[in-house]
């Protein structure tokens, strides 16, 4: 399967600030880290066959690549099966409360620029109870990476429909089928002014790792939707794109700077924009009149095309875009907040001394007795 090699944009002009800038690196002569070092001593307690295992293994294997000291990495999670993630990594970690991880991570990331901050969340955690925090973290663009494990179900509470469950899905709390319109997490993130939005899948280690790399490198909030199978309560939710005989026809690999295509080599289709704006996949050698080939540009300032790509996805999974939808550079909230504090301190001549505090307490209008 094709993977995304690099996150840089097609216009790839100036070097973008790295998401890792400001975080101390391992000494150059330090022995290379291994997956084992990032594995905690806690017994992993997901159900056998759960997609979370594959994601954990991918993350544990990937982290050494960052070249950071373990003490400079923090994972914050909410509540759900997926949110148990931090316990299994030998980094700093907090398993917080349902939906609130982005807020807690915002406080940590803003006050600790030397920390590489990750949020692990589920579809219920991020999009239902924590929806408000998610959209505001994305809009602020706090430097952190959010891994959204989407299994289209509430796993931990044993199988109720979630905000990504499909209409008609039969679950414990929707015995006659859900009548709830689902969110498309990528569309939602793009609408919330996200600067980095990607989708990947638990079972594709290589693709997942490439996306993790790009997400960590991005300075700002990176949202990574990871399709994750829950074999207990929603088995096979993503089977159509996991099944080797079908995936090629369905997965649309987003490759920056290249036409958006789908299908096996001998039956490849290209995405075109028809006059009027409608998108359509057509055979590569039969472009309709006036049609314009869509060339993926993750770095486009205007998120409209990225949004249009996110809409290719339907519950039938006829076409499922995977990869980086959007990756643009925008000043981050935490950098901005710290810059204001630093400027105030510098302008005043350095950190506040006892005399500075005394002046604050006295204010402008004092009088003396005795």
């Amino acid at each position, binding site marked *: 399967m094709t993977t995304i090699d690099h996150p840089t944009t097609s216009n790839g002009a100036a070097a973008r600030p790295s998401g890792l800038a400001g975080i101390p690196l391992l000494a150059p002569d330090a022995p290379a880290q291994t997956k084992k070092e990032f594995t905690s001593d806690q017994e992993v307690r997901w159900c056998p066959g759960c997609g979370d295992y594959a994601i954990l293994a991918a993350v544990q294997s990937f982290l050494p690549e960052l070249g950071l000291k373990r003490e400079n990495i923090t994972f914050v999670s909410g509540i759900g099966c997926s949110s148990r993630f931090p316990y299994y990594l030998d980094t700093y970690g907090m398993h917080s409360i349902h939906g609130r991880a982005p807020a807690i991570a915002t406080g940590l990331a803003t*006050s600790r620029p030397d920390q590489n901050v990750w949020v692990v969340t589920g579809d219920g955690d991020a999009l239902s109870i924590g929806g408000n925090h998610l959209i505001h973290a994305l809009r602020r663009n706090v430097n952190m990476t959010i891994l959204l494990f989407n299994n289209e179900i509430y796993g931990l509470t044993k199988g109720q429909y979630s905000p990504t469950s499909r209409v008609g899905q039969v679950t414990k709390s929707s015995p006659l089928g859900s009548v709830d319109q689902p969110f498309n997490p990528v569309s939602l993130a793009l609408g919330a002014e996200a600067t980095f939005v990607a989708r990947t899948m638990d079972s594709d280690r290589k693709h997942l790792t490439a996306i993790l790399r790009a997400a960590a490198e991005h300075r700002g909030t990176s949202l990574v939707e990871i399709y994750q199978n829950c074999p207990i309560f929603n088995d096979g939710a993503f089977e159509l794109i996991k099944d080797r005989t079908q995936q090629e026809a369905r997965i649309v690999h987003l490759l920056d700077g290249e036409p958006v295509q789908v299908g096996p080599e001998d039956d490849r289709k290209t995405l075109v924009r028809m006059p009027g704006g409608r998108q359509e996949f057509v055979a590569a050698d039969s472009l309709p009149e006036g049609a314009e080939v869509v060339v993926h540009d993750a770095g486009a300032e205007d998120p409209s095309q990225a949004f249009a790509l996110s809409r290719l996805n339907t519950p039938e999974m006829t076409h499922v875009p995977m990869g980086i939808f959007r990756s643009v550079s925008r000043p981050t909230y935490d950098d901005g907040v710290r810059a*204001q504090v630093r400027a105030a301190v510098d302008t005043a001549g350095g950190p506040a001394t006892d005399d500075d505090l005394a002046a604050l307490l006295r204010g402008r209008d004092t009088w003396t007795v005795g």
Partner: protein
Amino acid sequence: MSSKTVQKLDRVVIRFAGDSGDGMQLTGDRFTSETAAMGNDLSTLPNFPAEIRAPQGTLPGVSSFQLHFADHDVLTPGDAPDVLVAMNPAALKANLADVPRGATIIVNTDEFSKRNLAKVGYAESPIDDGSLESFHVHPVPLTSITVDALAAFDGLTRKEKERAKNMFALGLLSWMYTRPTTGTEAFLTKKFGAHPEILEANLAALRAGWNYGETTEDFASSYEIAPAVMPPGTYRNITGNTALAHGLVAAAHQAKLPLVLGSYPITPASDILHALSALKRHDVTTIQAEDEIAGIGIALGASFGGAIGVTTTSGPGVALKSETIGLAVSLELPLIIVDVQRGGPSTGLPTKTEQADLLQAMYGRNGESPVPIVAPSTPADCFDAAFEAVRIATAYRTPVFILSDGYLANGSEPWAVPEVSELPDLQVEFASEPNGVDDKGEPVFHPFLRDPETLARPWAVPGTAGLEHRIGGIEKADVTGNISYDPDNHDKMTRLRAAKVAGIAGIPDVVVEDPSGEARLLVLGWGSTQGPIAAAVRAVRNAGHSVASAHLRHLNPFPANLGEVLRSYDRVVVPEMNLGQLSMLLRAEFLVDVRPHTSVRGLPFSTVDLADVILTHLEELA
């Protein structure tokens, strides 16, 4: 020189009242500053509607500011004004019931039109119909005199000129009470520096008001109030919200840690957010969050990172934060939750005061979730309460509540500014090395290995090599902090968390004041009722009775001697601005049949009413 007489007074209560748009809060603030500069002791009570601009000239739109100042120590903003300045009929009507016979009322006659009178249900003007006979009424056409005084300002519209009438009123009152206006002139210069014409107009209005007092025959004399005798020191006037913000900053300074505030605006707490946002120079980071839950989450995340995390709110916000407070209890991280209480339930009375969040702070969470509570007793005391809350939070790794209220938040009083060199050191030691060994004898870090004395766990901040660890809201095994569902462990951890809070050291014994030494009745209060209670107790004692009084700053845990104190009186009366919340806690904890005296009118207790209550209890005991 004026030919008028000057009389000496020992105390005065003035209330400025007008429409929300009349600038009464500003007028009151300025008069307060002038009074503070004179060296009087003072106490203030702003009272304003929740709506920014309720319909003009209506009763709901009335905004007022009361100031009590004296040549001796002032305990409350005063029950009843000696002088009421009423800028319109609504202001007169809304405040008249509080004005005692014989008091002075200055009315702006220009606003007493048929239409304005009708708006508040006056059939006839009370100025003319004899209904104000028992007061000293000064009818002053404030608006038109101001406009006339500004005739030369061609660049200003009539409306703009009218707007300066509050400065005219301030000038008049400043003359009446011989207050210097230099401070106000400097203030106006700063405020309107960019608009020279408006600045000049305001200054002219201020002078015109002064001159009006000096020249019109209507005002026969002016008054002097000698400075109060106060302990030596440098003083400033300060509101509760400012004092609280300064206390947090000072505590962070003494702890040598950054302060991080996560907050969502809400009356009457927003001014703390405003104040702290302006203190970046003191390494203060403020994040205005998307909601209260995010506000406290941000603060907790910062605490995890080694900062002093603070969240500020009022009762409705506390309701939203409850789950995260529970998380902080479970994680055992320092966190400051400031609840500036207002009338409830629900939206309640946003701009009015109440003490009805005590039980919410104490018990408003799932599970056994003990949180220390500190309550300031006066506006200036908000500084010390904030400092004390940070001491407890950092030393015991626990969330701490500060229960202020609307009365303290907006009220002000002179504050003897402390010497920074005399502030306690709050320096914290972060964990820096492993504190245990694993089965193989390798050094490991145990995040829940407690200090045997304080029961506090180590605070190991991200970035510390070798101490990588995970914490969460699931019950943790004692010592290791690993997830544990073991029944005995949960029982143990629950009791440890309770014991840690119950055992907080450094909480002073409650001090009973009983000058005669013969009192059989104790009046016990907490938080902002201290002033009214002390004033009422003083009045009762001055009338020749014995009564003891004591005040609580720590609501959880209570001072160690509290039970003994309660049991040593025949009767204990507990006045509070709720329906008996402290009383309930005291009864439950000490099995003492305390007598609640309660009021939830959105206003502080009146001294006279409280004194009556105390006298009634004394009669029953006799």
